[in-house]
């Protein structure tokens, strides 16, 4: 009797699960009094901290805008979804935001791997998707016209970074080490950097013997021992900051105190703590100690919020990706205002086109570090800074701009 009941209960529950899976969550009707935007951030998984800080940033924007009376008389609502840094989840997030939540535009996803698979969906669903961090070359370019990135291609940034690095440390030879499992880092380490070194007459000592490791490696001692034996003037570390910390600590441990150059992936406060005596040169579009009215106001407002958010460290500072996603949402809001979008469901498709066109034609949008626009590839034209990290802080050395022919500069 009991087992029979259990079985019945079990099968009933199973039917419910399947039915629920198929039919539950029927598309909700967007309210006409709301401007709805979407965001995809990695709030769980290995980049949880970036995602959680992004979430807090977006919630701050939402609160500020609504406190100031909303947009065109409508309230702003930002639907934030977690993709756990998994590409497949990011694509489903976009489908949900565009299809069910009827958002006007989407900020995110963060990683290049996620952007690679999410941008095609953005084109399929005809909704703007702008990544806050992807910098792997060509990702937005492959997915025109709906994909954008509020970041600068690493190839463009390197053109300013490498000459500064050469001059500042009198570098004639370098050795390159990169994360082979990370698509962005591998492209920068195996293609972009070797080419840039050649352009600047810097000899790559391990040109025919690429040195790499894999994301997740704790031990890079063998690679560093080899680097050290080459005795380069400087070291190219192409990896994300988390892996970069491992490499730089091993350099310090083995006494290889040589200046390091890398891509935007290195920018973080964590890497400054790895070995304060090793100078790190990298490009950034924003860093927490940046000067300027807009940037300073942003940090002043956001920092206390981040530090009081549970799950984030007590000494956290706003990151470049917080700044980028803040700018993305601000651009969307600006477009909504200028185009007079009121969030009516019947004009959703036309409104999405309006936002796309406004992004494509964007010129001189007031970003945190100066004016922002987009080039034909969908990547940002904005100011960037070559920053040097030493003794625990980033210091700006050169200001550059990712100009593109036929577009206004910064």
């Amino acid at each position, binding site marked *: 009797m009991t087992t029979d009941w259990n079985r019945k209960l079990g099968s009933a529950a199973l039917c419910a699960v399947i039915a629920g899976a198929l039919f539950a969550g029927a598309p909700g009707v967007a309210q006409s009094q709301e401007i709805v935007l979407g965001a995809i951030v990695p709030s769980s998984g290995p980049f949880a901290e970036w995602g959680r800080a992004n979430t807090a940033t977006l919630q701050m924007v939402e609160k500020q805008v609504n406190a100031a009376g909303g947009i065109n008389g409508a309230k702003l609502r930002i639907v934030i979804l977690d993709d756990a840094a998994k590409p497949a989840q990011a694509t489903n997030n976009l489908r949900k935001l565009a299809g069910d939540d009827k958002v006007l535009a989407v900020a995110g996803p963060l990683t290049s791997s996620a952007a690679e698979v999410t941008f095609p969906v953005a084109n399929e669903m005809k909704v703007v998707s702008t990544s806050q961090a992807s910098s792997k070359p060509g990702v937005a370019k492959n997915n025109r016209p709906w994909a954008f990135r509020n970041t600068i291609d690493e190839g463009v940034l390197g053109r300013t970074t490498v000459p500064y690095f050469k001059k500042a440390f009198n570098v004639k030879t370098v050795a390159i080490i990169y994360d082979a499992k990370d698509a962005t880092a591998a492209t920068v380490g195996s293609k972009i950097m070797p080419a840039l070194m050649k352009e600047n007459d810097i000899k790559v000592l391990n040109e025919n013997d690429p040195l*790499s490791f894999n994301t997740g490696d704790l031990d890079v001692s063998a690679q560093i021992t080899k680097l050290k034996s080459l005795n380069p003037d400087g070291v190219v570390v192409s990896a994300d900051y988390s892996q970069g910390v491992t490499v730089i600590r091993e350099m310090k441990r083995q006494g290889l105190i040589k200046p390091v150059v890398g891509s935007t992936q290195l920018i973080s406060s964590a890497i400054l703590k790895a070995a304060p005596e090793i100078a790190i040169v990298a490009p950034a579009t924003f860093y927490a100690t940046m000067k300027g009215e807009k940037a300073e106001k942003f940090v002043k407002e956001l920092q206390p919020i981040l530090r009081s958010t549970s799950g984030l460290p007590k000494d956290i500072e706003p990151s470049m990706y917080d700044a980028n996603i803040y700018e993305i949402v601000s651009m969307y809001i600006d477009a909504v205002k200028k185009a007079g979008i009121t969030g009516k469901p019947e004009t959703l498709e036309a409104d999405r086109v309006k936002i796309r066109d406004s992004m494509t034609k964007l010129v001189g949008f007031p970003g945190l570090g100066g004016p922002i626009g987009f080039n034909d590839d969908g990547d940002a034209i904005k100011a960037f800074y070559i920053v040097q990290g030493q003794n625990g802080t980033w210091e700006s050395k050169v200001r550059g701009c990712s100009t593109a022919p036929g577009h206004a500069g910064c």
Partner: protein
Amino acid sequence: MLLQQLVNGLTLGAVYTLIALSFSLVMGILGVLNLAIAELFMLGAYFGFTAIIAQLPLPVALAAAMLGSALVAVVIQKVAYEPLRNAPIVTPMLSTLGFSIILQNVATNVWGSDPLQLTDEVLPGRLTLGPVSISTMQLLVMGSTVTLVAILAFVVQKTPAGRALRAVAENRDVARLLGVSAARVTLLAFVLSGVMAGAAGVLIGMHYAVITPYMGVDIGLKAIAVMVIGGTTRIWGALVAGPLIGIAEVMTVAYGGSQVRDFVVYGLMILILLLRPQGILGGSRSEQGQRV
């Protein structure tokens, strides 16, 4: 440079040995792959870091981490293993995977996903012998590995508890007939395995001085390979296999093959599995592994 690379390889090998032993205790005795061991190792590192940052001396940090990881191991044994003891081996393997997901999430929420670093090296000294430079921490890692393996071997070979472990490993039913409590032995295997993983976490965490909630994932897979190569039934096997893989990895990198390193390691594992399924030091057991 070759000698220096040898030192690098031996250190890495010691690291692998420590984690592999942890896997092999549960695997060799119960025939179950406890996937959460990678996370016990990660937790050990966080426990150790917390103690060191709180200015506690190294031995206290070590003890705290060993105890902490052992406690979590007990929970895993009670919840994820014991109720599924008679299920096909793949089922408890997946329930320990459930634990590994939980522990990663908890660690991310408690300590954050950013790498946690120690500002100073715990033992800053270095020893220079001609062309070779070796840090005090490296010596400690290698020394502790050999000591822990020796202690473990002593426990398993010479003590009554160890004899019970081996009896259950040989034949669970016969062991029960001989009056060995299978439940207690299982618990002991998990506790010992947790202690090893905790110790590995502290030593490795302090050596590299940077830890993240996901640090156990990749090194865990390599440690499984080391366990297989060493043979799951011999404690000393891991002490040979760890350095073997460590040196193989380091030499692949040193001779220009850093990109094919993982290919080489797993290839070596498969080769050894095929040629000597009982591991390089394993005895001549013909019946290997239960049915799935």
